[in-house]
């Protein structure tokens, strides 16, 4: 199972991952020309990956797609499910109870601008290949790689 | 007249080659080699042909036989004056020729049987061969209009501008007998038409006929010129001759080792050898890296008591070997062999970079 792995040794805190995430989920994927400026102009972004920073250390945090996900267990409507190792959210089912936000130990689930919860879904609906944050990281601090087994 | 080497022009050429060698040391008349090279008429264009015969001067076998072209009598006087001061001239004569319609503009062609003057030789602190080689190079570089094109013992080069079969007739080679003959028909891709530029090219007892155009020429030339050679003709054949002379005579390599330098195996091949061979081949290839010859060539190297045929590493030129009893035939085309010996015991095409070397058999060697 491929996972997003963040290595704080190489994270520059440039926040390109946040913008690439916002871009990937802006609904403009598939339009031409694909243009981040058009998609994100005058928008305050609300990305699913976030840079944590203190002193000299910074790294990006996004959903780890846990093997035994507390969020899925706690979801009262069944909006959160684990499909092929990826924890997906069904926005139709979410009732904005925020339980998942409370139980996630990584702070990787947050409300979207529309209110329902959002989280990293490995860009499965966007690219089918490499998540945008990984593709756009200039220093290979975020990698999408096989960890072996159904890990975490 | 435009010549090889003048004004720094280098003239690439394609060609035909042929050779005959008797392992028994049997003396063969020049007639067959003329026939053989004549068959490959289409591979030359009339701008150069030549022969080397070994064992042709048994009566003077301990003397260096100089064959010299003179453009005029002034050059002859000057050269003879030089030879007089450095060599004991035992015999001199015009080389007998026959008038042939197609061969024109012949220079004065003279032959001298010489040995170095003992006092001069002692003063020079050189051995006889080195003394003679340096004298030859000196004449060719310094005396305008004189060109020593053959300088070995008991061997001789005969060459001219013309088709090789005409050149053979011109020099009356049917009247010579030797244990080894090589021949060359030239197809230069430029038109200099200077007699000295024809092949074989020779230095001391070493002679080369060559078909090809080597791409490593200037790398080879600039390296070999460090060691007292002067590539005045800017031809491949000249530089190959000097390389083999340097490797064999000055560095003491065997002819096979010399072949492992000039047509060194690819590293891939060397790496696969057992440790001892790998070390030796790496050593040779690295030590004489600048003497590796690339580009297409097939050469026949005539030397005292033997002949070597060698192709470039990729075998970009044709060459066939035929054997019949104790006689060996090597030519650019099999037909040139079949013409003079239709019933061969064995015919094969040497692989690229694989030297095929024939020397006298044991009996002859021990008699020598």
């Amino acid at each position: 199972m491929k996972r997003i792995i963040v290595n704080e040794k190489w994270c520059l805190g440039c926040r390109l991952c946040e913008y690439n995430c916002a871009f990937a989920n802006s609904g403009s994927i598939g339009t031409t020309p694909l243009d981040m400026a058009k998609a994100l102009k005058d928008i305050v972004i609300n990305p699913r990956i976030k840079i944590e920073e203190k002193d000299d250390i910074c790294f990006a945090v996004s959903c780890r797609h846990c093997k035994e996900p507390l969020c899925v267990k706690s979801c009262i409507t069944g909006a959160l499910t684990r499909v092929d190792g990826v924890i997906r959210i069904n926005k139709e089912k979410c009732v904005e109870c925020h339980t998942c936000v409370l139980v996630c130990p990584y702070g990787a689930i947050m409300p979207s601008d529309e209110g329902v919860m959002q989280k990293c879904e490995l860009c499965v609906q966007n690219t089918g290949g490499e998540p945008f944050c990984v593709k756009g990281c200039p220093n290979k601090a975020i990698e999408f790689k096989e960890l072996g087994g159904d890990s975490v | 007249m435009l010549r090889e080497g003048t004004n720094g022009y280098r003239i690439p050429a394609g060609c035909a080659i042929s050779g005959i060698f008797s392992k028994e040391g049997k003396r063969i008349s020049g007639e067959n080699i003329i026939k053989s090279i004549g068959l490959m008429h289409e591979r030359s264009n009339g701008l150069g042909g030549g022969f080397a015969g070994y064992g042709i001067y048994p009566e003077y076998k301990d003397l260096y036989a100089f064959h010299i072209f003179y453009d005029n009598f002034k050059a002859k006087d000057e050269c003879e004056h030089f030879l007089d001061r450095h060599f004991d001239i035992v015999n001199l004569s015009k080389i007998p020729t026959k008038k042939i319609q197609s061969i024109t503009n012949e220079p004065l062609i003279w032959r001298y049987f010489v040995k170095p003057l003992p006092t001069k030789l002692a003063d020079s602190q050189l051995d006889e061969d080195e003394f003679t080689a340096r004298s030859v190079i000196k004449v060719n570089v310094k005396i305008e209009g004189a060109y020593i094109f053959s300088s070995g013992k008991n061997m001789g080069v005969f060459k001219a501008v013309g088709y090789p079969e005409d050149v053979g007739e011109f020099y009356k080679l049917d009247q010579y007998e030797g244990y080894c003959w090589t021949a060359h028909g030239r197809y230069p891709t430029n038109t200099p038409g200077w007699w000295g530029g024809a092949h074989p090219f020779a230095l001391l007892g070493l002679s080369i006929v060559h078909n090809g155009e080597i791409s490593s020429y200037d790398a080879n030339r600039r390296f070999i010129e460090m060691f007292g050679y002067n590539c005045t003709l800017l031809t491949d054949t000249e530089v190959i001759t000097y390389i083999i002379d340097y490797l064999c005579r000055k560095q003491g390599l065997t002819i096979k080792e010399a072949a492992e330098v000039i047509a060194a195996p690819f590293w891939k091949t060397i790496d696969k050898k057992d440790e001892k061979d790998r070390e030796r081949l790496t050593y040779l290839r690295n030590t004489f890296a600048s003497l590796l010859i690339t580009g297409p060539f097939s050469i026949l190297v005539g030397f005292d008591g033997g002949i070597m045929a060698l192709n470039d590493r990729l075998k970009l030129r044709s060459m066939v070997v035929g054997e019949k009893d104790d006689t060996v035939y090597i030519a650019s085309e099999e037909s040139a062999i079949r013409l003079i010996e239709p019933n061969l015991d064995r015919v094969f095409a040497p692989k690229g970079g694989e030297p095929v070397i024939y020397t006298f058999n044991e009996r002859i060697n021990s008699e020598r």
Partner: protein
Amino acid sequence: MSIDFIYPEYEIARNKDRCINCRVCEKQCANEVHKYHADLKMMQADDLKCVNCQRCVSLCPTRALKIVKTDNTYKENAHWKGRTMSEIYLQAGSGGVLLSSMGNPVDYPIYWDKILINASQVTNPSIDPLREPMETRTFLGQRPNKIERDKDGNIVNNMAPQLELSTPIMFSAMSYGSISYNAHESLARAATELGIYYNTGEGGLHEDFYKYGANTIVQVASGRFGVHKDYLNAGAAVEIKMGQGAKPGIGGHLPGAKIVGDVSRTRMIPEGSDAISPAPHHDIYSIEDLHQLVMSLKEATNYTKPVIVKIAAVHNVAAIASGIARSGADIISLDGFRGGTGAAPTRIRDNVGIPIELALASVDKRLRDEGIRNNVSLVVGGSVRSSADVVKAIALGADAVYVATSALLALGCHLCRSCHGGKCNWGIATQRADLVKRLNPEIGYKRLVNLVEAWTHEIKEMMGGMGINSIEALKGNRLMLRGVGLNEKELEILGIYHAGQ
């Protein structure tokens, strides 16, 4: 504004329609050029601080940035160009020597670009490197002058120690200190993967990199920084640095600010102290002294490693090289006047030394005229920009080339020539931890490997075109070159004919 004011040479052009205020530029600029103006809700830039390193341009996700040359100009004057005038203002204000980095950028002739390469047609087949072997393996070192045989007639291996390269390209000296740990790691790993060598420069060898020793050339320079027995024996060869193409005749000065932590330990000097390499080696005032150092280093390494002597290309380089070839050195490295540096006085960088092409041609010829070319290998550096330059260098007579600027470019350097500022935004010429981490060696080494592999492919294609299937047959093969637009004297020095001849 005052008399000292110099209008910035480059301006940041921001396309407001494309800028999304992501502030990546702000976070990536160590020179603090970009700032977010919260009230105006827009990015602003201070052109005065910009060094034009292109980091912000490269990382801007919306292509909203470009850097343009200013159109502010002094009154035009063919003799007093803008740069000349600005330098006078700077010096009048500071009283100091002007400093610059990287290679000489002045418009002198580039001989590489006036030399063309041959190819086969008809009489000699070109060779397809995809179908036939095409060899670039190169050995560097002294070759024996005489074949020796043992009593059984076998050839004795009397070969001096050699460097074996898979392709005739090496990374030239850049010290740990002048460049970062990550840059060094990238070079070391790339050299190892490629089967070539990188060079420590004069800053010693970080303990983490001893494991790459088989592909390392350790340098001994006039400051002797980081030199000890284990260091000398850690590498595959030892290089004595007598001079550097970017600053012939002068030494080096790494400011105390860069002598921190590991750099200080590796150099074996106290933290914060300036690392000053004297102009000459104070134990080498003539050629016989060089001979002694060469032999001492051989003694120290038990005669198992070749010794390289590196000199800057200066006017009488041929005579100097001839002396070095007789000093016991195995390899001579020539560094041309375009060679890079982490810092050099501008006047020296821009006015001292000669083009490497001419130096190489005359050194190669001189060594051949003296019959000693095979006693020594020749490595040239200081402006090799492409595989074509490599082919031309080898055809002129080099055994191999040294590249450094090209390698730094592969690592991200954009030649802003501000290394001496120590704030390299690409994580190369800096020791600031937050900047150093911008160069991930995992990316860096791969890019270096890519570059050298790409060049090697191109070298093979060009060799094949010439009908040459082994690099040694290209070495010194000057007939494969022709000059264009060169005068008789230049052609004579280069030892090549003019195109059409």
